């Protein structure tokens, strides 16, 4: 079984991420001078792509999905008010993309504590899925 390619970041919405985090108690600013050494840690987020639409129609991720949206919060209470911090193409070279290097988001954290990550699938018709179950990211 082939391993899916690592996710390609299409857009890192850094300003939006800072806004989102500051709005949920995460603190918008990061003190880089006191940040830990992240050079050794590699955090990888992965998920199973959906295989159906909510009406039960089968879904083919490589053709029916456009991209995934990555969300980050200090708590697991994701809502439609949240703004994605990154987008990942749903397919690369005809292969399903289903992981993302969280290291790309480290600069949005304080480097310690717990964060929560959720993903939404966005169809080629523009319809967004609900949030995935949040995954706890312990730094």
């Amino acid at each position: 079984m082939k391993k899916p390619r690592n996710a390609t970041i299409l857009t890192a919405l850094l300003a939006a991420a800072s806004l989102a985090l500051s709005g949920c108690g995460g603190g918008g600013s990061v003190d880089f001078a006191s940040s830990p050494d992240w050079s050794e840690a590699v955090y990888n987020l992965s998920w199973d792509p959906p295989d159906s639409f909510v009406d039960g129609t089968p879904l083919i991720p490589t053709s029916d999905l456009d991209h995934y949206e990555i969300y980050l919060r200090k708590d697991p209470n994701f809502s439609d008010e949240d703004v994605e911090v990154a987008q990942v193409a749903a397919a690369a070279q005809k292969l399903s993309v289903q992981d993302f290097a969280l290291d790309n988001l480290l600069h949005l954290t304080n480097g310690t504590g717990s964060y929560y990550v959720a993903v939404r699938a966005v169809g080629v018709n523009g319809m967004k899925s609900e949030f995935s179950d949040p995954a706890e990211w312990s730094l």
Partner: protein
Amino acid sequence: MTSVRCALSGVVLLSALLLASVASAETYQLSWDPVTQYTDGSAIEDGKTVMYTVYWTTDSTLASGLKTLASSITTSSTTFDPAVEGMTSGTVVYFTAKTVLSTGEESVLSDPYPWTVSKTKPNPPGKMRIKKIK
């Protein structure tokens, strides 16, 4: 009952202006121009209530499979949920409507209005996991 006379002119417009637009994530609105005249151009008399019965089918000829979307409504629009109506995502369905007056006269069916049933939203990704590699 004279059905021919009540093949209202507005029904012709209906086929051109029947619109399906997203009212919410899963609900769509179908709308049309209100009918105010008979086919001969004369105005529908005051005191007569103009109503519409709306159907959908997968048969482009409208000859079979008509399912009622709304019955005898007085508004010139209606909302629907494709999943609730049993429409299959990605397929083409055809809307049609007829005008019904409170006095019983009815128009013929409007020309079919084709619409591709939008696929609903995807289910969310599952089995989220985070792995620290180093």
